[in-house]
């Protein structure tokens, strides 16, 4: 495939691996966090870790939209579908996220709830148009990449004058999650999570640009390299991070210049600003309640806000006692450090959210890398 195979070329990978080995100082260790689940997936699927020297370690970050969705939010969606009888539309990965009472959206569907998997927010609007007798709710999740399409759906519904379409908005913000990690005691005080730099998001950065990361580089003295989701992108980014560390620099560099610039997609940013505003607080799985870390629908579009249309109060629900998703999302633990990993918690029967999406650290390690543990 043109423009894809070039970024998965084994010969180039070996050359890059050799360069990384040459440049990495054998006297020190390097710990880099890949923020995004897309990177986690690429690292596991292509076996990138096998090509790195022993003193370069990757830590999986919290950037998997399904993984950070707290149980309470999935419960809300399930309640809407089961009790309020709405047609609930959402992205495929969301369906299997474990919620309260042993339920998930998929299990609620088996109990008779009308739950549909859609490929885009526009499909949900179309569904509402086709079925004026049904209340259609789009369960909107994800980071900045999926937010603009939700904004478009809401504006479209407004333009069409739809009375039966609303959005349960759970969109979250990348920079807040990065701050939360950098502010965590494990990184700041105790040093139990050694962190020498970040691989910055690919798709998120096409929207927000590279500028928002400059704060982290300056304020926390951590190098950031924005990278694409192909395995060669990841390896090149690791090499750039090693160079920054070796040279004592902490800057934002852009490996993914074929798609990302400093300012990002202004049009998308305007759309998002027009439809959404900051939430004061939002609970994340694993990262707890983070101030100004998520979006809600502006008053002007309130009629499309499922939280206003339906009686939905938010009830936080603690994770399974033995589940380490929280610590894994903060980089404190690895999937194989969790007692549940691969025993009671598997992709077929996930206990924690990191085992659900293919971008989750646990699912990626279970699916592609668990042969290393035995």
């Amino acid at each position, binding site marked *: *495939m043109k423009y*894809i195979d070039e970024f*998965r*070329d*084994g010969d180039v*990978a*070996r050359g890059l*691996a050799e360069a990384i080995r040459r440049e990495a100082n054998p006297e020190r260790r390097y710990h880099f966090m890949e923020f995004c689940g897309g990177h986690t997936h690429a690292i*596991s*699927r*292509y*076996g*990138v*870790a*096998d*090509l790195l020297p022993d003193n370069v370690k990757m830590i999986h970050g919290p950037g998997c939209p399904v993984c950070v969705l707290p149980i309470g939010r999935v419960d809300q969606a399930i309640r809407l579908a089961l009790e309020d009888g709405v047609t609930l539309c959402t992205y495929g990965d969301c369906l*299997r996220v474990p919620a309260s009472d042993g339920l998930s959206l998929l299990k609620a569907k088996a109990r008779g709830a009308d739950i549909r998997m*859609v*490929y885009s927010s526009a*499909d949900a609007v179309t569904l509402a148009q086709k079925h004026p007798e049904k209340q259609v709710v789009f369960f909107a999740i994800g980071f900045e990449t999926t937010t603009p399409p939700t904004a478009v759906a809401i504006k479209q519904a407004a333009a069409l004058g739809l009375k039966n379409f609303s959005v349960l908005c759970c969109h979250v913000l990348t920079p807040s999650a990065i701050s939360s990690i950098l502010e965590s005691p494990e990184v700041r005080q105790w040093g139990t999570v050694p962190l020498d730099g970040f691989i910055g998001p690919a798709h998120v950065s096409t929207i927000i640009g590279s500028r928002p990361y400059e704060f982290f580089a300056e304020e926390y003295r951590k190098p950031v390299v924005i990278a694409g989701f192909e*395995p060669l992108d990841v390896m090149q980014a690791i090499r750039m991070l090693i160079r920054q560390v070796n040279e004592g620099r902490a800057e934002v560099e852009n490996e993914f210049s074929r798609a990302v610039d400093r300012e990002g997609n202004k049009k998308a940013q305007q759309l998002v600003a027009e439809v959404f505003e900051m939430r004061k607080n939002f609970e994340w799985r694993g990262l707890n309640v983070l101030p100004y870390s998520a979006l809600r629908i502006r008053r002007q579009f309130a009629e499309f806000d499922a939280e206003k249309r339906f009686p939905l109060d938010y009830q936080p629900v603690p994770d399974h006692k033995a589940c380490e998703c929280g610590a894994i999302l903060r980089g404190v633990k690895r999937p194989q450090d969790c007692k549940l990993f691969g025993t009671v918690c*598997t*992709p*077929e029967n996930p206990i924690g959210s990191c085992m659900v999406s293919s971008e989750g650290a646990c699912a990626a390690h*279970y*699916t*592609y*890398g*668990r*042969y290393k543990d*035995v």
Partner: protein
Amino acid sequence: MSEVRKGYVRPLDIKHGQVDMAHGSGGRAMAQLIEELFAKHLGNEYLAQGDDGALLPAPGAGRLVMATDSHVVSPLFFPGGDIGCLSVHGTINDVAVMGATPLWLSAGFILEEGFKLADLALIVQSMAQAAKEAGVPIVTGDTKVVERGKGDGVFITTTGVGVVAPGQELSGRNARPGDAILVSGTLGDHGMAIMAVRESLGFESPIVSDTAALHGLIAAMRDSGADIHVLRDPTRGGLATTLNEIAQQSGVGMMLQEKALPVKPAVNAACEFLGLDPLYVANEGKLVAICAEQDAEKLLAAMRAHPLGGAAARIGTVHEDAHHFVQMTTGFGGKRIVDWLSGEQLPRIC
């Protein structure tokens, strides 16, 4: 079966008619549907017996194989085939990968009230053609009708019977360390052909289903004299799931070479676009063969010489592994597990 007297009843209006509840009632309307649609196209000496079951000659030496498969594919018509030919090919393949020569099929239809007779006729004609090409007649059948909304047009269950010659021993339990793993052609064509015509996806692609009966190819493989240990058709769950089943059954591990996997560029591109992995996408006209290492080249040559095996390739090797992992050396140079399919990658593909 009560006979419909010509001249008393108007012929079925296949062009404009629809299935109604009477077509499954056991009465005259059902008899007419069977005579004017099913028997007309599928007719053969056994079906013509008209009894509750088909009376078949007992095969000579060897053992019998029986396999059954239900088909609920959506949409019913897709590029490269339809539910009719798929239901014939699917069951023939299940019988054939046991090393058997398929002899007869049965077909059970569950029709939804309101289903267009014109579409049903197309499906039955497609079954008839597939059965004829394969030389495996449909010798008995059944029709039921369910109320509107209780089905999805038509579901078809076919059962096949075949005979295995004495001395043939094919089973998923027979893979041995050192064996070679071969596939008969490109992976993922059927699943992606179905996916591409799902209305909600809105993309066009030139991909057609690979649905085909494989017993001819299998006969050619047997004739090559190669020591074949396992044959299987990687349908739902794709190659990855089939290999994991075999690894589990045989108590072995496997190592695949990603670069050796045959995948059409269009299938690869569509998978990339939808976030799917061709290793998990269904095939309906491909098989996996595991054979003794020294016979791998001979078997590969025999497969490639057959029209259904032109793109056959050797993709990996069986080895000892107490954990029964199927692993792969990626084109990138790393190693990873090729796991069981978890959840559902594509709904209702066969």
